[in-house]
């Protein structure tokens, strides 16, 4: 096996530079690469393009990079819950491209699967279709959407091994596997880095071939956005 382990987030992101395009896994604050985001915030880089389903909240997740004015452009499906985001957007400091969630996921998948473009009905007849090729198959219209390119994909998994194999936990899986497949360089942070051979080959969600660097993260906060409970 090929050893992909690096010591920590700082080393994992050491060659990320201003102006690059990053994919960041997670849905809301669930399954986001907390350690790498914190390391990015400490690094003197800006003008980043971030592909991520959401943009965090004001004081957590990608919101911290926004506070720090490191992001030039967000490509997301939903960006609520973030006052600083709104401010930068209206002031023109921040560019935003909103795309349907399934289109976002599938454009990542396309990249990981070596497909330059995919067809989806999402957005046909809406402003999302502007400037895009519309094509009819079997009587239904589809948009042709291009695969996403990203210099780095940064994902968070539950368990991983030195070969880069990843297993996610529950709905913290979300965009992480598709982004892991799509980065020119893919960085994975895991809650637990286990011994080679400990993960059942049948249960691996992301095979190590897609992962270039892996490290065991620390101090996961795992903030909950909407704590909903039922009465006993």
């Amino acid at each position, binding site marked *: 096996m090929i050893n992909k382990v690096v010591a920590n987030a700082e080393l994992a992101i050491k060659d990320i530079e201003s102006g690059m395009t990053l994919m960041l896994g997670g849905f809301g604050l*669930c399954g986001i690469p907390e350690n790498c985001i914190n390391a990015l915030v400490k690094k003197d880089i800006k003008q980043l393009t971030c592909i991520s389903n959401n943009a965090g909240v004001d004081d957590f997740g990608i919101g911290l990079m926004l506070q720090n004015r490191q992001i030039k452009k967000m490509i997301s499906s939903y960006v609520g819950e973030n006052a600083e985001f709104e401010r930068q957007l209206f002031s023109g400091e921040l560019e935003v491209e909103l795309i349907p*969630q399934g289109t976002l996921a599938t454009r990542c998948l396309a990249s990981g699967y070596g497909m330059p473009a995919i067809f989806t*009905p*999402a957005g046909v007849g*809406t402003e999302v279709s502007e400037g895009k090729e519309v094509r009819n198959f079997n009587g239904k219209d589809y948009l042709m959407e291009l695969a996403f390119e990203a210099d780095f994909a940064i994902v968070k998994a539950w368990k991983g091994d030195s070969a880069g194999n990843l297993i996610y936990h529950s*709905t*913290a899986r979300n965009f992480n596997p598709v982004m892991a497949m799509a980065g020119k360089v893919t960085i994975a942070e895991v809650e637990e880095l286990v011994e080679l051979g400990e993960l059942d080959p049948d249960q691996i969600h992301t095979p190590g071939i897609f992962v270039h660097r892996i490290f065991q993260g620390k101090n996961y906060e795992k903030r909950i956005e*909407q704590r*909903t*409970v039922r009465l006993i």
Partner: protein
Amino acid sequence: MLDKTGIAKRIAKEIKDGSYVNLGIGIPTLVANYIPEGINVVLQSENGLLGMGPFPYEGEEDPDLINAGKQTITTLPGSSVFDSAMSFGMIRSQKVDLTILGAMEVSENGDIANWKIPGKMVKGMGGAMDLVASAKNIIVAMQHVNKAGESKLLPKCLLPLTGVKCVKKIVTELAVLEVKPEGGFKLLERAPGVSLDEIRKATAGKLIVEGEIPKMEF
């Protein structure tokens, strides 16, 4: 006239035994509470879960287990988790039988607008465009008129569209309406205490009234 709970209850009656259903944020989420007993329904959450269970008991919240509204939830025996690509894969391939979601406007040909108000902060369409472009059956849960008192059932949507010719049925505080393939809102049921005139006044698009219109039953 129905309250939000009433709308949710009425929509719950539309759910067929053995179906997979995606519930949007807001009133649609409430629908889960009123699914009749004996009806087997599997809720799909587009962030990657089939078989969404109820909210967890206090202290049992798992930050890794949320629904598309980012609420803490639980799984059920038989649940499955998958990534976002597969989630929207099953939506696009119409394995999800029914989508219930809110709307700002619906047009008489079934167009829906529910994601953007020009000039206001736009949060994004999330998974709504994918859902309305693919679902076999789409039911909209919404108020019949907006806060300014203007009808949300229009000849043509004024707001930017989420999807075209997709809404099959609408349940509001006033009525249940079917969107006809050839255009027009066909009135199916009136809410308790609501007159035909009230519905007519609140519906800007073409309203089709044929024969006696029954009162809603729950």
